[in-house]
């Protein structure tokens, strides 16, 4: 038996619904249809009255979840695509993100963002928005890269007393498989050493972990040992694990699928430069998508985002310095 990243997300929601009567799911097409990606397949039938279709109203979806959270519920909101969450942006950052600070009342909502590029997705079905949510106070931003993390981190997200932006990568939905669901997990906020190495640290998250891993395999044929750090959580950001890795390798490359201006990669480099400057043997580098909307055609898309080949090329540049 094997289980995909997408199935793990469905199973996590089924487990949350089964174990916690406060949990409900609200979003476009999540009911009888089971969601645009089938992440809520059969859940409406298994949990009557708790998996509900919403109107196409991202603002009101999030607003409703905040009200329900105030009332003690644990809502999960599915944004059909992360790109559309911008319509609900105000409710996420200004309503949910400020509630605890202003009133001391927690806001335990989980907003699921199917995000990231897939072939043919185009400008409005491909975006990576983790940075804009991480920028705002009062939000937790999770970016699972593995089937196991997709399951355990989504379950953890529902249990967190704060608004969680759960960034689940669409490219991993069907590609990524595991033998079984995990029974234990690293705590939220802890990064994971995905692959050990001594020559260069690649810090990344979500789908880029796998591109970085492929790049590391390519570079191992050339004799380089690359360490890949999977952040798992963009906010909070596990700076200690990153700096410990840089202390071992002396070289840093940060990779993100999001746009280059600002971003998680810039944040990681700023922290390493500030707290671990002396650990760096050469200047740190970062690799992001290009500063344009995400293109539709697969050939353009492959050149727009970092790929294993592009990561390997960037890594070689650092390794040869």
């Amino acid at each position: 038996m094997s289980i995909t990243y997408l199935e793990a997300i469905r199973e996590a929601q089924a487990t949350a619904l089964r174990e916690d009567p406060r949990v409900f799911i609200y979003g476009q097409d999540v009911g009888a249809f089971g969601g645009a990606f089938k992440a809520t397949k059969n859940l409406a039938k298994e949990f009557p009255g708790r998996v509900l279709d919403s109107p196409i109203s991202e603002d009101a979806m999030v607003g409703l979840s905040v009200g329900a959270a105030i009332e003690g519920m644990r809502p999960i909101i599915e944004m059909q695509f992360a790109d559309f969450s911008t319509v609900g942006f105000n409710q996420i950052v200004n309503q949910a993100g400020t509630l605890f600070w202003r009133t001391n009342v927690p806001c335990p909502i989980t907003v699921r963002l199917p995000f990231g590029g897939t072939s043919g997705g185009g400008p409005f079905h491909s975006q990576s928005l983790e940075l804009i949510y991480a920028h705002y106070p009062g939000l937790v931003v999770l970016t699972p890269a593995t089937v196991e993390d997709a399951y355990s981190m989504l379950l953890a997200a529902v249990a967190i007393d704060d608004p969680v932006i759960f960034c689940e990568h669409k490219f991993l939905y069907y590609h990524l498989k595991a033998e079984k669901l995990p029974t234990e997990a690293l705590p939220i906020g802890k990064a994971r050493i995905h692959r050990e190495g001594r020559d260069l640290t690649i810090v990344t998250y979500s789908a880029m972990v796998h591109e970085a891993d492929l790049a590391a395999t390519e570079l191992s044929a050339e004799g380089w040992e690359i360490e890949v750090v999977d952040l798992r959580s963009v906010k909070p950001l596990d700076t200690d694990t990153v700096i410990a890795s840089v202390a071992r390798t002396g070289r840093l490359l940060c990779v993100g699928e999001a746009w280059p201006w600002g971003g998680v990669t810039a944040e990681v480099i700023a922290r390493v430069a500030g707290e671990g400057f002396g650990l760096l043997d050469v200047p740190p580098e970062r690799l992001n998508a290009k500063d344009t909307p995400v293109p539709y055609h697969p050939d353009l898309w492959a050149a727009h985002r970092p790929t294993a080949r592009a990561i390997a090329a960037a890594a070689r540049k650092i390794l040869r310095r």
Partner: protein
Amino acid sequence: MLQTVVDANPAGETATSHDSMLAAYRFMLRARLLDDKFAALYRAGKIHGGVFLGRGQEALSAAVGVSLKKTDVFAPLIRDAAGRLAFGETVLDAVRTYLGSSLGPMRGRDGNVHRGRPTEGYLPMLSHLGAMVSVVNGVLFARRMKGLSGMVGVTCLGDGATSTGSFHEALNQAAVEKLPLVLVLADNQYAYSTPTSRQFACHDLADKAIGYGVESHSVDGTDLAACLKTVGAAVARARAGHGPQLVVAKLLRLCGHGEHDDSNYIDPKFKNLPLGRDCLKVAEELLFREKILDAATLTVWRSQIIHEIDEAVATAQREPAPDPFTEDWRALASENLLETHLENAAR
């Protein structure tokens, strides 16, 4: 089923309605005197940030507050001092928030009209207009899931807020879910400085109800008796399971958007129209005429209320301001998920 209810002025008042008129009037008076105090404190430079008054909207707002039960949900807007008091807010909570006391409900983290106690069904507004409607929906939605019934949620907006996407999304959502929501619109002729002719093109905001499939009610917002009857009826309809109710009150804002605003853009013609009347004066005259209230009692009330407000101000002014050094600078409830490496992070 769609129904538009236009309530006429109530005739043949009973003793009970006299009592409720009087109770509502007292909230109006308290709100007006509280607003006057905030305006004076603002002019004296004692308040940080803006001051936003409800002058001219007290009848509508008080009618909302007195129509609610403790177990209901209320998300007021900036001109709802009367409704807040009637829903149970203390003068001290209001004063502490305006003066930034660390002992107030917002602890100096937010101020002026941005105050509430969410766990008591009293929701603190955002500045983003229309944003509270779906939050009220969420509370009602959750209560229904928990098997609770017989409660309503009320939120107040102005004519300007009807132009927002949030308003549209949330009213439609409430209609789809048939939630016991009462949306009270104060059509006060101006959204800040923008006249209604630049805000919407429909004949009457009450007409919007048709498009959403919700019931609507129109009322003269300067007439306390009419507001009590109409808002009361809308709340009763929602409570009885007839779905969302839209109440549109026509009135005039008798102050600037905030105290920084001299409102010189208000067309003088409005002041001479019935909607330009001061609802407090109108109510007072009615209460005197009907011998429900006499001048001597009113004088006593005024001095009692002014004393209450002055006491609250004196109390809040003696209280500690929030201390940046003991402030925990924490925007998350989960202590274990705080950022530990940001320069200005909590720890």
